[in-house]
């Protein structure tokens, strides 16, 4: 039976305390979210890095689909980049989907209706104008789902509806969300889109709303599930609301993140309703047969985080405020396609080499760094992205330009022997010290704003994240 074989989630470290943001905006009288948290990506994160982080750890798929409405490139396939970043075979089929918050669930449904083992990796980092409700309601993050046979969450039924209801849009001319009146959305979406589609999905699965124990329904406005559950006679909690409260609305990643959370909370035999919304709806009904690999990260991701109460820093990180970083920021970071062709895949996949005597190094070189090497040697590829490391030396550099000072960097010593001078990221309140254990995270390495290009590499982050408020 086809189903979801594994799930993955990722949320950035910082969590904006929406109450603090609301206080900063009080003078304006603008309505905004006054409670809960909003996940905020670091300066070096984007929809692609979120998707890759969520998609780490599973089996190699036949095809990889990247889903997002905030992908950094119009013409450069993120799914192909993800193949390299995840160290997958280059024969893996790849495609991007976009156009609606629903795109990840739609891609998941397509995969479930197919016959191959597909990976849906979704990430979202949407821009919004400060003061808009969207700016605080949205959140940054990613999720992933692997599709296969004999899966822990087996698909029982599904339904789809294509319906251009413009509750929100963004366009090339207007890249920020333009939102319709909430009452219109609340009344129309439930009645015309979500309820009828969910009813058809339940019929397809041969069950009723009362047979659903868990919901992962992406609500376009908070609280809509109450009306839907009444109409469908379901008493299930909507785990998507938890994601909204702790991380914000994750756009394309929201439903799959909520689904991962639902699988973590569901017992074998229980049923989960997954619904993606946006220009219509895809509703899917699953039955859990056994514990879901990767689901445990969903609960942890909601618990972890570093509270952000500095509204100006949030504005800067979310791209809503462009600070003048001074002359030192005038630095060309142009990446050349020829160089990317030669070295880009090893950088994106963090692939080093093992020399003839077993020493591992990054980057690879013709003559190994091993002291007794006295000529060129063949090197075997070794992926370092998933290898643990510790800090040999480190500093918080406050001189050089970085969009979110300070600039942490130093030497990381991998347990398997490689040593790399690299950037550190996701510093917690105590920063980094010599001897700290670190894990690798895919991040933006350089951002060439003049030419609209970015490169990615791995950065060392604390091996453990703090509990939010801890």
């Amino acid at each position, binding site marked *: 039976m086809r189903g979801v074989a594994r799930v993955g989630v990722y949320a950035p470290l910082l969590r904006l305390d929406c109450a603090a943001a609301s206080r900063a905006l009080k003078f304006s009288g603008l309505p905004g979210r006054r409670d809960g948290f909003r996940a905020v990506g670091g300066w070096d994160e984007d929809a692609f890095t979120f998707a890759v982080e969520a998609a780490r750890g599973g089996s190699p798929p036949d095809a990889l689909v990247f889903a997002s409405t905030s992908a950094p490139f119009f013409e450069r396939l993120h799914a192909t980049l993800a193949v390299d970043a995840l160290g997958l075979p280059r024969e893996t089929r790849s495609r991007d989907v976009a156009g609606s918050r629903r795109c990840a669930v739609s891609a998941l449904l397509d995969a479930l209706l197919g016959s191959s083992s597909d990976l849906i990796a979704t990430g979202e980092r949407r821009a919004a104008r400060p003061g808009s409700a969207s700016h605080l309601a949205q959140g940054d993050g990613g999720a992933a789902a692997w599709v296969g046979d004999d899966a822990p969450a087996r698909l029982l039924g599904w339904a789809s509806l294509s319906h251009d209801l413009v509750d929100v849009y963004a366009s090339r001319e207007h890249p920020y969300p333009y939102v319709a009146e909430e009452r219109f959305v609340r009344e129309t979406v439930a009645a015309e889109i979500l309820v009828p589609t969910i009813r058809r999905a339940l019929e397809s699965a041969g069950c009723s709303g009362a047979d659903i124990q868990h919901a992962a329904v992406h609500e376009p406005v908070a609280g809509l599930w109450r009306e839907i559950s009444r109409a469908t006679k379901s008493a299930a909690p909507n785990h998507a609301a938890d994601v909204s409260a702790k991380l914000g609305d994750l756009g394309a990643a929201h439903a799959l993140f909520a689904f991962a959370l639902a699988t973590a909370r569901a017992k074998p035999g229980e049923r989960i309703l997954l619904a993606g919304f946006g220009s219509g709806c895809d509703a899917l009904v699953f039955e859990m047969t056994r514990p879901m690999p990767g689901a445990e990260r969903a609960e942890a991701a909601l618990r972890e985080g570093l509270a952000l109460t500095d509204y100006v820093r949030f504005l800067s990180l979310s791209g809503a405020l462009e600070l003048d970083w*001074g*002359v*030192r920021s005038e*630095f*060309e*970071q142009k*990446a*050349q396609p020829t*160089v*990317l062709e*030669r*070295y*880009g895949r090893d*950088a994106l996949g963090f692939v080093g080499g093992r020399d003839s005597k077993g*020493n591992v*190094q*990054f*980057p690879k*070189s013709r003559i190994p*760094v*091993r*002291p007794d090497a006295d000529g060129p040697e063949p090197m075997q590829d070794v992926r370092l992205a998933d290898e643990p490391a510790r800090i*040999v*030396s*480190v*500093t*918080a*550099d*406050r*001189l*050089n*330009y970085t969009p979110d000072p*300070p*600039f942490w*960097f*130093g*030497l990381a*010593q*991998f347990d398997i*022997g*490689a*040593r*790399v*001078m*690299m*950037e550190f990221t996701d510093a917690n309140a105590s*920063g980094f*010290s*010599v*001897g700290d254990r670190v894990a690798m995270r895919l991040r933006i*390495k*350089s951002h060439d704003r003049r030419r609209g290009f970015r*490169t990615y*590499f791995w950065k060392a982050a604390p091996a453990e994240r703090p509990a939010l408020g801890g």
Partner: protein
Amino acid sequence: MASGIKDKVAIIGMGCTEFGERWDKGPEDLIVDAFEQALADSGVARSDIQAAWMGNALDDINVGNSALPLAHALRLKSIPVSRVENMCATGTEALRAAVYAVAAGAVDFALALGVEKLKDTGYGGLPLRTKGLANDLWLPYGSAPGSFAQLAGAYAAKHRLNGDDLKRAMAHVSWKSHQNAVNNPRAHLRKAVDMDTILKAPMIADPLGLYDCCGVSDGAACAIVTTPDIARGLGVANPVTVKAVQLSASHGWEMSYGAWDGSYVLNTREAARRAYAEADVKDARTELSLTEVHDCFSITELVTMEDLGLSDEGRAPTDILAGTYDRNGAQPCQIDGGLKCFGHPVGASGLRMAFEVYTQLLGRAGERQLQTARLGLTHNLGGAPFNSVAAVSIFGRLH
């Protein structure tokens, strides 16, 4: 069998401009000023110079690429002129090339000149620069203070030092250099600073505060070298001679092989070992009268004292706080103020160090003259502790 450089080359003239924010001087002015001083000091004619090497590290900051800026500024008439660059060790590289040319017998008189016009960047500190297109895909764009600051954490971890104790020793390094520079009319910063000010200064790269870092400067320094025999013929009976010039460059071991602990600079140790052998120095602590080391940051000078063998490993903080390297200490260091206060026009710094040793050896240092100046060492370090070029040179009189 190589016999080394000891006493094969004499320095017969040196010049050094004032270092600092030379808003009124372009690179041509700095080159000409340093050269004219050296020429007058040497007693030879401009036309006697048969080959020249220009040291300039950041050619894109006004000076311009190639060696032509030197040839043009000095109107050197169709002689071989080359530019050398090896990061902050560039000045010593220019001198090394000139010294080797004379020692090889290729020329009788050679010129080494280092120049830098860093204050035309428009801001403090060194500019952020590409590390090569492939390296830019993964290497961090860390600043110089950020790269050297890492020595401190690794040093403290290795020797189980309290961070505050190390910080105090580092502060003493800068305090001493500020004291020394007061007596140096060419110095960029001629102002004494108290320990409290140093310790409470704003952080630049943890744990380096503002006063733990040297600034960057405009300036030029120059040397004219020949053989001791020719020097004698010019009436210099006991010239300053080169006892050793050694260079050691990283080959990736520190930053890519898992053995270095991050607390010292391997290349300083290697270059010093070879320089002591070349100069026949058996006991650096008693034989060296003064040292001019690459104190780009206070922590660099601290670990350099150990890397040069002047302090036992783990003892540099104690020796520094005991005043061993102060002006009146057993082993005066940075008597001219060092990079910290004399200034750091990158391509000129190695030659500036040699200039101070030369001046001290000839007893011309005025208020800052040491009572005994027989043998002096310069240590010129380029790059970062994990990827460096270290030059160690020793100078003395022929007899």
